[in-house]
């Protein structure tokens, strides 16, 4: 177990700024995800830690010691790659033994440890298989076992599940987390899939254009996004441009409605333009009784689309303030149809405002 610190990492490729003075502290034993859209610098950050890329400036500290002077093969970091990376000429077990062979561990110790690790990833019966005889998910399990063989100080995973089927992906991410907790190994996990990041991490670092927009627990990042980028990248969100009615009263005007925000810090002035963020699951829709116009909401609107997503159904409503998206329980949504007139309401405390 080791802590990892990235300090002011800066890296440019030609005129592309891949990392823009990135700072990140990962405590020993912590599972931190780097989450962001494609091209935001996640892989570059991870490769700087692994030693495959060298930052133009900044430092990478492991347990307080700078590792940038060490070549990749001396850093003792286990890495699982996005592309399939098993050695095709070796069996699963030989792949896992590879690093131990280089360290000249005795044969019996090697094979014992390799079989333990294959057991840990649930592949003890596939030890003799060659990579081509394994499914994608199995190959990535072997890659994980292989990365863990030397008990590395840090485990690095670069979108290890992105090539897999949705179902295998969910199953495997839970397994990665279980193994990480079992071994207590410090882990940096790169992904562009927000659900993946939120579901397995101790903390999530949201990246955009080479810098960290926000870092926090999955719940913090989801419920209290600090920037508009985080609000829209993590989960689905309704956005609305509104004006501050009363800074002291923390009220804003959204179309015909006046809303009170329940945030503690409200650093705006009367008349400021701010952007309102609202999660679809915090929107409720009301139907009028027996064909009457529904009332009691902030405003009314008409249903424009209904998308069944399993446990929830996503309903888009056209209102006088623009489109609003609501996630209803699928049972509730059964009462609605396209063009139903509905009232739109918002759960108290669900609104976030950020400077426009």
């Amino acid at each position, binding site marked *: 177990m080791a802590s990892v610190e990235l300090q002011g990492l800066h890296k440019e490729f030609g005129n592309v700024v891949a990392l823009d003075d990135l700072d990140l502290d990962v405590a020993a034993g912590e599972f931190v995800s780097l989450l962001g859209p494609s091209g935001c610098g996640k892989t570059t950050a991870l490769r700087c830690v*692994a*030693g*495959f890329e060298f930052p133009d400036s900044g430092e990478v500290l492991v347990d307080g010691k700078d590792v940038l002077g060490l*070549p*990749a*093969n*001396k850093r*003792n*970091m*286990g*890495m699982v*790659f996005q*592309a*399939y*990376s*098993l*050695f*095709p*000429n070796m*069996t699963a077990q030989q792949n896992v033994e*590879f*690093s131990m062979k*280089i*360290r000249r561990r005795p044969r019996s110790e090697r094979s014992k440890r390799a079989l333990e690790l294959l057991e840990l990833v649930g592949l003890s019966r596939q030890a*003799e*298989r*060659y990579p081509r*005889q394994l499914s994608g998910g199995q190959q990535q399990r072997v*890659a994980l076992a*292989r*990365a863990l*063989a*030397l008990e590395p100080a840090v485990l690095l995973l670069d979108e290890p599940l992105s090539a897999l089927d949705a179902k295998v992906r969910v199953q495997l991410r839970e397994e990665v987390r279980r193994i990480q907790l079992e071994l207590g190994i410090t882990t940096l996990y790169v992904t562009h899939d927000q659900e993946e990041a939120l579901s397995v991490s101790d903390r999530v670092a949201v990246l955009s254009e080479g810098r960290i927009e926000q870092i926090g627990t999955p719940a913090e990042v989801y419920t209290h996004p600090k920037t508009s980028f985080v609000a829209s990248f993590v989960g689905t969100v309704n956005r609305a441009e509104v004006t501050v009615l009363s800074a002291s009263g923390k009220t804003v005007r959204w179309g015909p409605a006046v809303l009170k925000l329940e945030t503690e810090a409200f650093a705006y002035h009367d008349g400021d333009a701010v952007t309102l963020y609202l999660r679809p699951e915090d929107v409720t829709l009301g139907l009028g009784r027996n064909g009457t116009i529904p009332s009691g909401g902030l405003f009314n609107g008409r249903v424009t689309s209904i998308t069944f997503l399993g446990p929830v159904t996503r309903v888009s409503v056209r209102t006088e303030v623009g489109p609003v998206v609501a996630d209803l329980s699928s049972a509730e949504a059964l009462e609605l149809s396209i063009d139903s007139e509905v009232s739109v309401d918002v759960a108290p405390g669900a609104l976030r405002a950020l400077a426009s």
Partner: protein
Amino acid sequence: MAAIAVPTSNKRRRGGHGRLQLWHVFWIIVAVLYFVVPLYSLLQFSFEGSVNHHSAGFHWFLTVFDDPQFRSSFWLSVQIALETVLVSNLLLVPTAFWIHLKLPKLRPVMDFVSILPFVVPPIVLIVGLVPFLQPFTFIYSRPEVLPLIYVVFALPFLYRSLDAGLRAIDLKTLSEASANLGSSTLGTLVRVVLPNLRQSIISGSLLTVAIGMGEFTISSLLSFNTFPVYIFNIGQSQAYEAAALSVISLLLIWGIMIGLFLLGRGGRTSIALGATR
């Protein structure tokens, strides 16, 4: 009307198809004759004339085998071929590895360079090489100079073969995985890259053997008595022996081809066996 038209057109098509097949057979026969007749004549000729002798058709073969010149030239060529394989692999395997891994921008350049030996005729090569090599008298006058020249001829075959092998694996990811697991670059070359290039190295090397064994122009110009030069000299005066020699060298080349085939298949079989265990 349509009902009538359909069968007719069908029939015509089938008829056309039949005629096409007939032509196929015809051309196949022509091609086979083109290759088989000279071979058969060669074989026939090499067995001929031995009726007067007691060795039941193998007379000229035995004569050839008894000739110390045959043995020395044959072994010289084998030796040269193996040296060519060694030198060209030592030169090209690390080069191809390095270019693919670190200098991918040079790949088109290497592609071009690797076909140059096809474009430049051997005679031009030798005219250029002689003045270059002449000052190095210690090597220039010895047959060991030939592998150094044949490496150039082997370049297209071996490099292309290695190139195809390297393209078939994700070299960057495999090398990084290997480094991440503690291996040096040399270790990666030996433990990861070479085993996965086995097929390419073998097939490229066998073609190189064929070149080393068969090259005539340069060894003749430099007056080394290699196997092809020996065959040529025999052919000037002893027609039967030359025919027997040609048969022997044909068998050799076929042996190389079969070796190539078996070694290539061997790799796959062992993997399949590993699976069933």
